[in-house]
């Protein structure tokens, strides 16, 4: 393979001048060695920077050595190059107390190169680590989830994809992805490598059905029927066999096992970055068997005095579950949008309380609700035969002190 990018490390060892030679320039015997990479490690744990660390064994002579490092056609940030001496290799006689120091670094004009002046107290091979930030080597993550037939659990496989457009090939490189364990893979020029980081079986999932007019809109605006998206919710904690680390963002492809033992593709979504204990919500598609009709049942104004009033709004949800299984429906309202929809426009934040006509059994979900949004859960029975029971819920909000 042709190598477009080549960087090299040269150690030029200068031999002592013979006594009596006045101008040693032309009489000098010069030898250049080419220390190979002994080990390379690519660190992808930073959000956007890629750090490459290579280990080489450089033969040094006692005295000052010139070690030249060059990186043609690659985008190394020279300011980030760190040269660290690990120590003498093997059994260098008397080198136990030896010292190797970098005296200075010189940058020649117009070249992607530098020259270290390295002083060594002993002659012998010295192991050094050179690290630098490299452009063109990037990473991304993706997931493959296979749900069981009953959709109670799934097998989650996490992959890292490393793309090498850095103009350099890396043979047998240790890659630290920032997630999972290190792995060792060669990665060639312009190559993309996908590696499984972790596979977790039996990850419990929650399947949710949600209505939220502001977020998901209507399925049928004339009949006021809301769109009911179905989500798989993965919780990134130990109880759900995850929680070891944050889940990075990436595409999630979801499959489901069918009765014949094969799998069917059921949808894909972009998984958001999910810290530990947070939920990754994956939208799979619209549920057509849960029908929710939403209307504004009531809006009343109670004048306090002058232009100061309280407003009562009652939202009515008529829900039918045509599935043969009971489901829980999440019903969400954005407070300011509901106030505007009921005709009370204001740029002031809404002061609201939940009114006594509300029929939901419990309070708004504490984790999912705030001053700006409320979310209630409604349990829906399964279809009986070919009849679905209609469940009606009311949400009564009083907007106080509006003007």
């Amino acid at each position, binding site marked *: 393979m042709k190598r477009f990018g080549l960087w090299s490390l040269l150690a*030029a060892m*200068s031999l*002592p*001048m013979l006594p009596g030679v006045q101008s*040693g*320039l032309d009489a*000098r015997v010069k030898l250049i060695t080419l220390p190979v990479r002994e080990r390379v*490690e690519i*660190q992808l744990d*930073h*959000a956007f*920077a890629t*750090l490459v660390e290579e280990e080489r064994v450089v033969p040094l002579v*006692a*005295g*000052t*050595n*010139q070690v030249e490092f060059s990186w043609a056609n690659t985008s190394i940030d020279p*300011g*980030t190059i*760190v040269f660290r001496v690990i120590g003498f290799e093997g059994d260098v006689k008397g080198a136990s107390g030896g*010292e190797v*120091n*970098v*005296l*200075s670094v*010189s*940058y020649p*004009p*117009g070249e992607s190169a530098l020259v270290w*002046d390295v*002083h060594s*107290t*002993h002659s012998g091979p010295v192991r050094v680590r050179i*690290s630098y930030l490299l452009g063109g080597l990037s990473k991304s993550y993706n997931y493959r989830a296979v749900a069981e037939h009953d959709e109670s659990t799934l097998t989650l496989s996490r992959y890292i994809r490393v793309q090498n457009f850095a103009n350099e090939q890396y043979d047998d490189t240790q890659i*630290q992805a920032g997630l999972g364990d290190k792995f060792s893979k060669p990665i060639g020029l312009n190559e993309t490598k996908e590696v499984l980081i972790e596979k977790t079986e039996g990850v419990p999932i929650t399947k949710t059905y949600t209505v939220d007019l502001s977020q998901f809109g209507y399925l049928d605006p004339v009949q006021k029927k809301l769109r009911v998206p179905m989500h798989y919710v993965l919780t990134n904690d130990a109880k759900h066999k995850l929680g070891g680390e*944050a889940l990075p963002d990436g595409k999630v492809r979801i499959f489901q096992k069918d009765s014949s033992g094969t799998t069917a593709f059921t949808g894909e979504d972009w998984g958001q970055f999910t*810290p*530990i*204990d*947070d939920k990754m919500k994956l939208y799979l598609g619209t549920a057509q068997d849960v029908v929710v009709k939403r209307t504004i049942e009531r809006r009343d104004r109670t004048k306090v*005095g*002058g*232009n*100061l009033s309280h407003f009562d709004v009652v939202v009515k949800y008529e829900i039918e579950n045509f599935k043969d299984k009971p489901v829980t429906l999440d019903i969400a309202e954005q407070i300011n949008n509901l106030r505007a929809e009921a005709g009370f426009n204001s740029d*002031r*934040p809404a*002061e*609201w*309380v*939940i009114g006594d006509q509300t029929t939901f059994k419990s*309070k*708004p979900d*504490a984790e999912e*609700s*705030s*001053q700006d949004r409320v979310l209630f859960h409604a349990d829906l029975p399964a279809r009986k035969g070919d009849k679905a029971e209609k469940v009606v819920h009311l949400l009564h909000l009083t907007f*106080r*002190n509006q*003007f």
Partner: protein
Amino acid sequence: MKRFLVLILVLSVTLPVFARNIDLSTVPSRDTVQLTIYNAEDLTLVRETRVVTFKKGVNPLQFSWANTLIDPTSVELRFLARPDELTVLDTTYPHDKPQMLYWNVASEFSGEAKVEITYFTSGITWSADYTGITDPDEQSMRLEGFVTVTNNSGEDYENAQVRLVVGTINLVEKIEQLARRGMLQAPAAQGGYGGLADDRKRLMRREAVRGMVMEADAMFADAAAPMAAKEIIKEGLSEYFIFTIEGSETVPNQWSKRMRSFDAGEVPVKVQYRYRADEYGDQLVRMFLLTNDKGSDLGESPLPDGIVRLFRRNESGTLSYLTAQSVKYIPIGDKIELNLGVDPNVVFELIDLRVFRDNIWGTFGTNVRRQFDEPGVRIEDRGRVEGWDEHTVFAQRIRNYTGKPIDLEIRRAVDGDATFINRVDATRHDYRTVQFTTSVKPGETRDVKYEVVQRMGSNQKQNRVEIEVGDPAPVPWLE
């Protein structure tokens, strides 16, 4: 190696020397050179010495600086030996020969004398940068400071004593402009600064490397003795600080050379998470806080402006990149604050829990209305709300997944005439900003609740936030 800067003793008897076409001259070489490089301006003071042999009587001296960036108005000649017997009679800048001048020196003796020539040049710059490598647990770091000298002056300075000046000086004219003004009539064929042909560059580079190898060889006799990087001596001078690099350095034209200015092995690091929207944007950032003092293995000199690059040494010895950040001049004793950006393992959310209004005031005028065809009177007030208090209850939620306890400092701006009600020992950072601190254990989720009361409309009498210790109002939908 070819030099552009030449001092010539012209062996002519009569003046004017520059009218002659056939001349004989000697070229006294440069003995020592000292560069004093300023980082705030493109300015370097060059001080060089040469030994010149004078004859008794008038000696014409020619000084030329083709293809360099020397300010002709700054060139000065001084006699270090026998100054009482040597006098500069006049200085001539010939109209037909740019980048050249003549001195007529009257000597009362025949013999050698050491002279010093000083001048300003542009094109030599220096900058500082720093590399910090923290321990795996980020409790302390090794911090190395570097200085990099870059020579684009057009002249090679060999074995120069290098002094670097930290500080901001005042110049009324740029040296480069002064230098170029004198070059306007230079023939194009000579090529300007930086316009060297490639083969010339290669030659210079080869020679430069050889020069450096020679320097290295000079030390070869003591090869087995440990040799540290050169020490950089720091001293204060008026409003400036001077770093003098031990020994001498060769920086060929168009080369850069980076040398270590200090190496602090154990600098204690304090990690603090900060929310300051004005400074760091609307995000919680992780900070490394260091101090430039003796207790921190630093404090030897101020730290000049420069880029700090931070790495962490992992348990396995490998490095992880953390961040790169420019820092401004840091005086001795001052703090070094390094922003590492958002930590994905700390989740920071501000949640609005409740809004309510009270203390509502209005002006009421009353209109009376009567129905025309039926008896009955309706009284309708037409008041408008003019002033009210708006209460907002917030939860500042912090989730710590780092595995270590974390300290946070949070600053929140509160506009208008406001009261900040809390139980977190908040203080006022300025008239409109509240500051409070908190700690969160590993794995803990902490909600810091507080209430902000803003007096609106005609209720607003002030424009400042006050702090009140108390419980925030209850949140009925939650409790």
